[in-house]
């Protein structure tokens, strides 16, 4: 971190704050800057010493994920000339003599890690001769080699934990220092370079170095810190408990699903401020009496709030932890992590936000002693093996790299970049010569394009915030112009002329042009366009005679049959509003809809229906039975002129409120959709569409009028045939269907048919799994996915499915716009999750008889080019993938949080369905009947075959599989096996009908289970001793019993020693139980036995080999060894 020039013109209070600030924040200030506090630190001697809290953290992380280079600190510089390598080697020896921490290793024999001096761990100087490399390539070659060395993991147990390399180029030298974070920090690296330069200069001059002796050793400090808690810990603990209560880590919009375990795999995107912006940051910091770090932190907060949609933003920072003057010249790791938590209130201007950030930062710095790991343990911050830590975003501002001078040789720093990430995102900036650095990201979570956009957004936002520091953030919400343009491009579907015609006009054109073509087929029935026209005109005449007014709803209660098509066309032709009901729905529901709609007229085939409806309180004035419709077209009666903006149909959908609401859709909207079928799916007169949707669903309207508007054929599939895959496929084949539009459920049925169909496949209306998508792409002529609420007319987006690509939502259809917005209807940045709002020609008029609900969901479109337009808030959440495709994230209701983590139910469902035994699955959040947790994540499994005793076989197996592929926090707490999933009338999953698990069936860790195998018994014993407990069940959670992360690491070391197997600490996090530990140990033992058996086999084999064969074999082996690349 960085601080301004001390003192000048400050009030005493401010000066005190500044002093406190400096003592903590001095990591950015380098040696010698901290306040001169001293206190006696006793000498501990040179024997094995305890670890400092910072070292413990590093050692623990090494156990968690061994063999990583993520904690190698490095500094690389070009020396303008030749260094004297003998003098440098001597200076290195002197440096190690001065700082014996440089020949320290971490010995964990017995489980308790200690720092131990080891002569074998002395760092050495390597000189790499690159003088043969052409001068132009020299530096690049050296940098590449230096990068390679920086990325080599170091062994904490054996050392050395520091390296010094000189790359000798034709004309100059490149110097590389690498040191492990367990013995150094950013400050220490500066000390090391400074001392090395001084010692080198002395060696060159042949004089003793002018360095004051060090007052203490690092080990003294570590032992003192480990000797007992600082008295400040109590107040600090209280502060952090209060400050971080209910902490919600930022939910970053990651591009790739979070794997069960994190890796340090990382990459970076450059962040460049340029001199103007750099000056602006410093000027603003001076004006507001704060530091560049705080200004940048505040800007980062704004960017994170925009990106996550969360106001509550927490960012981790590092403090030097060198309050004591004796520590200033030491090499060692003193750093601590602090959590800076701020509320980004969109009503505040940046200046006011900054004032708040300044306060919280100073307060955090005033409580910087308590090791952050202790904060994590005590506050039980969410912990999982999928996350490197509880703070997904870190921000570090380092001073300009130390430009040491080596006996007159100027040294210019070289940026090696970052290839490991310790958090999801880390902003690393250096403040000299101007602000620059990188946004480091976990490459297993983010696409590089996303990181580049974020980095760019940070720079642009900082510039804009500094230019308009008093504008409320909510109005500013700064996005780079390029990003705004890109979002606008992605938002808009193709712009097409929309002729002022009605659905009837479209069909009339076909009736006139192709009277004898087949319009409708059904089992045993075939209607030509002319026949359809006659029957529809006859019925329309009857409706007109019945006094039908324009836009008046006419209820139609008919199964999928030619009469349904006749009725729909007749209602429209007579100027009415088609209101379809599904006879397959309950009569109570249909009666309710009739009542709500106030429909006066009902078209049906069922004579006895009227009486039953009356009993349910619905009494339409006139019921026109199919038998009475006739075919007599009335003479001379002029067909009513229908306004394109008049209503075409009204569809009742049950919203989240549970009460069905009637969506009113105009001819204009319907026509726009029908025309899109030609554009998106090449609909023409050859189309034979298999109609399968419930008539009460708006997809049915599209099924009937889609083919009729282009002169094709509607083939009506009988409701009974749809329930069985074989009959379904046969019905489609019999009708010569060329295309159907079905839900994922419908396609799963067809997929299982003995004679599957091969047609054009449209799929939508519910989540389409990648597996189904791949099947459709493979087996069907063409496959499209489509999405859209009834309120925006059938489907608003569509896209052709492509092999091996996650299923996107699709692009907006013609004259349709899709926006992603936050709660306040502001655009979210590219890649961020936002609510999908849809505008354009498909927008419904509203909800029948519900002006307030209409006004709530159909809101002013702030992005429209034409004035006064509205947009519909879908309640669905989506984001743009890095490739620009719109990706569905979840319903508002599906975004659940369990134990502090946001969980995408769809992702969990997909993991359950990936199990070979599971036909279908659903996942929901339900209250915990036992009251242990607020909420439980419950998985509902439909097995492919009836499961016998699922509790002992199926469920544990599915749980294991899910643990393999999902982070532990996403693995459901409960599993219920169902025969089938409850579905709504339109075939969608009925979430509300999923049962709530009963109490006490908890299949996880509460019940005591005694050890069942000798190994479990042994490990139970060890854990019991370790935690000092009387009983430990094999399913008990190690952490719930009081273990913490360092203890866990020690336990793992203990087990490793006892059983002689390698255990990966990280594996313990997913399921920290004796059972799991025993499995891990057993797996290790099994692997070892295989290996031993293998060796034994080879030994026997070798014993039986004749000598000459053996010689040849040896020669081959040696030759291979000789060719093996040497470690550099």
């Amino acid at each position, binding site marked *: 971190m960085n601080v301004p020039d001390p003192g000048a013109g400050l009030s005493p209070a401010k000066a005190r704050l500044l002093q406190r600030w400096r003592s903590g924040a001095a990591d950015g200030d380098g040696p010698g800057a901290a306040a001169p506090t001293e206190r006696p630190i006793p000498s501990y001697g040179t024997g094995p010493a305890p670890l400092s809290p910072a070292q413990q953290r590093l050692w623990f992380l090494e156990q968690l994920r061994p063999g990583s280079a993520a904690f190698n600190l490095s500094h690389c510089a070009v020396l303008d000339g030749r260094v004297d390598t003998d003098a440098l080697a001597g200076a290195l020896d002197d440096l190690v003599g001065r700082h014996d921490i440089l020949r320290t290793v971490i010995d964990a024999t017995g489980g308790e890690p200690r720092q131990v001096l080891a002569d074998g761990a002395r760092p050495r100087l390597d000189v790499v001769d690159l003088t043969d490399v052409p001068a132009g390539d020299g530096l690049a070659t050296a940098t590449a080699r230096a990068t390679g060395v920086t990325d080599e993991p170091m062994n904490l147990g054996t050392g050395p934990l520091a390296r010094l390399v000189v790359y000798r180029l034709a004309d100059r030298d490149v110097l590389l220092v690498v040191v492990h974070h367990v013995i150094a920090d950013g400050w220490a690296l500066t000390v090391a370079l400074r001392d090395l330069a001084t010692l080198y200069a002395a060696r060159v001059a042949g004089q003793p170095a002018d360095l004051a002796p060090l007052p203490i050793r690092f080990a003294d400090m570590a032992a003192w810190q480990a000797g007992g808690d600082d008295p400040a810990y109590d107040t600090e603990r209280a502060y952090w408990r209060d400050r971080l209560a209910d902490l919600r880590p930022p939910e970053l919009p990651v591009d790739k699903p979070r794997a069960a375990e994190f890796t340090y795999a990382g990459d970076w995107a450059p962040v460049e401020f340029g001199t103007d912006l750099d000056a602006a940051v410093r000027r603003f910091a001076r004006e507001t009496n704060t530091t560049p770090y705080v200004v940048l932190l505040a800007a980062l907060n704004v960017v994170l709030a925009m990106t996550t949609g969360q106001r509550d933003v927490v960012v981790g920072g590092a403090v030097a932890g060198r309050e004591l003057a004796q520590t200033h010249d030491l090499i060692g790791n003193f750093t601590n992590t602090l959590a800076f938590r701020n509320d980004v209130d969109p009503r505040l201007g940046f200046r006011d936000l900054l004032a708040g950030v300044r306060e919280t930062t100073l307060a955090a710095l005033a409580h910087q002693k308590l090791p952050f790991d202790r904060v994590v343990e005590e506050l039980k911050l969410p912990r999982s093996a999928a996350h490197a830590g509880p703070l997904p975003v870190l921000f570090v501002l380092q001073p300009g790299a130390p430009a040491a001078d080596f006996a007159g040789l100027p040294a210019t720093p070289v940026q090696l970049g970052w290839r490991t990430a310790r958090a999801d995102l880390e902003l690393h900036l250096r403040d000299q010569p101007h602000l620059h650095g990188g946004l480091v990201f976990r490459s297993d979570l983010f696409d590089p394009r996303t990181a580049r956009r974020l980095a760019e957004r940070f720079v642009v936002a900082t510039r804009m915030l500094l230019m308009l520091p008093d504008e409320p953030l909510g109005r500013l919400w700064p996005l780079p112009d390029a990003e705004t343009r890109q979002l606008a491009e992605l938002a808009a579907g193709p712009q097409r002329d929309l002729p002022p015609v009605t659905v009837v006009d479209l069909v009339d054109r076909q009736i006139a042009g192709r009277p004898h073509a087949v319009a409708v087929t059904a089992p045993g029935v075939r209607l030509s366009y002319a026949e359809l026209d006659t029957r529809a005109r006859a019925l329309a005449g009857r409706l007109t005679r019945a006094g039908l007014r324009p836009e008046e709803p006419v209820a139609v209660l008919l199964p999928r049959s030619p009469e349904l098509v006749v009725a729909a066309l007749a209602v429209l032709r007579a100027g009415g509003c088609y209101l379809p009901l599904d006879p397959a729905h309950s009569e109570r529901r249909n009666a309710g809809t009739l009542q709500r709609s106030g429909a006066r007229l009902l078209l049906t085939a069922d004579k006895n229906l009227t009486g039953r409806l009356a009993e349910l309180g619905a009494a339409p004035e006139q019921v026109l039975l199919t038998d009475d419709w006739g075919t007599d077209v009335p003479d001379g009666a002029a067909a009513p002129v229908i306004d394109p903006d008049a209503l075409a149909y009204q569809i009742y959908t049950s919203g989240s409120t549970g009460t069905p609401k009637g969506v009113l859709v105009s001819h204009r909207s319907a026509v726009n959709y029908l025309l899109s079928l030609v554009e998106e799916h090449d609909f023409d007169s050859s189309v034979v569409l298999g109609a399968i949707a419930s008539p009460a669903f708006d997809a049915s309207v599209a099924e009937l009028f889609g083919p009729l508007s282009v002169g094709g054929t509607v083939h009506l599939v009988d409701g009974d045939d749809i329930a069985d895959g074989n009959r379904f496929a046969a019905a489609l084949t019999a009708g010569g269907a060329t295309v159907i539009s079905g839900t994922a459920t419908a396609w799963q049925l067809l997929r299982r048919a003995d004679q599957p169909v091969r047609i054009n496949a449209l799929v939508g209306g519910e989540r389409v799994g990648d597996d189904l998508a791949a099947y459709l792409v493979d087996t069907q002529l063409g496959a499209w996915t489509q999405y859209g609420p009834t309120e925006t007319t059938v489907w608003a987006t569509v896209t052709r499915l492509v092999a091996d690509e996650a299923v996107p939502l699709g692009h907006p259809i013609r004259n349709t716009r899709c926006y992603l917005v936050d709660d306040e209807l502001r655009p979210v940045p590219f890649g961020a999750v936002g609510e999908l709002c849809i505008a354009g020609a498909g927008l419904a008029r509203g909800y029948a008889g519900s002006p307030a609900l209409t006004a*709530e969901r159909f809101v002013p479109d702030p992005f429209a080019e034409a004035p006064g337009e509205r947009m519909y808030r879908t309640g669905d959440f989506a984001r743009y993938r890095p490739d620009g495709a719109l990706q569905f994230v979840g319903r508002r209701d599906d975004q659940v949080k369990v134990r502090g983590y946001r969980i995408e139910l769809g992702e969990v469902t997909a993991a359950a369905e990936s199990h070979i035994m599971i036909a279908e699955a659903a996942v929901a959040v339900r209250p915990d009947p036992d009251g242990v947790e607020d909420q439980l994540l419950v998985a509902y499994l439909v097995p492919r075959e009836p499961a016998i005793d699922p509790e002992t076989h199926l469920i544990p197996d599915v749980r294991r599989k899910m643990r393999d592929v999902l982070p532990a926090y996403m693995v459901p707490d409960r599993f219920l096996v169902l025969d089938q999933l409850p579905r709504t009338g339109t075939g969608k999953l009925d979430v509300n009908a999923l049962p709530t698990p009963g109490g006490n069936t908890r299949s996880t860790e509460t019940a005591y289970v005694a050890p069942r195998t000798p190994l479990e018994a042994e490990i139970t014993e060890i854990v019991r001793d370790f935690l000092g407990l009387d009983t430990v069940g094999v399913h008990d959670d190690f952490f719930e019993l009081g273990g913490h992360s360092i203890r866990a690491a020690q336990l793992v070391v203990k087990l490793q020693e006892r059983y002689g197997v390698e255990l990966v600490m990280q594996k313990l996090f997913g399921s920290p139980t004796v059972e799991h530990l025993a499995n891990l140990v057993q797996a290790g033992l099994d692997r070892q036995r295989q290996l031993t058996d293998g060796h034994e086999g080879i030994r026997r084999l070798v014993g039986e080999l004749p000598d000459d064969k053996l010689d040849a074999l040896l020669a081959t082996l040696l030759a291979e060894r000789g060719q093996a690349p040497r470690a550099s």
Partner: protein
Amino acid sequence: MSNETAEVTHAVVVNDEEQYSVWWADRDLPAGWRKAGFEGTRADCLAHIEQVWSDLRPRSLRERMATSA
């Protein structure tokens, strides 16, 4: 952090087609929208709309249908 929607004052807004909705009282209105004269909480505004918006048809359609009838 806490949801502060209840404190935010909304306004009933209306466009040229006399379609109603709500907008934040202190934010600029999107083009083509004007305040209809009622302000309050979001819920108040919606309740007001429930009372005053009696015909969901866009104004232009309403006028055309009136002439053709």
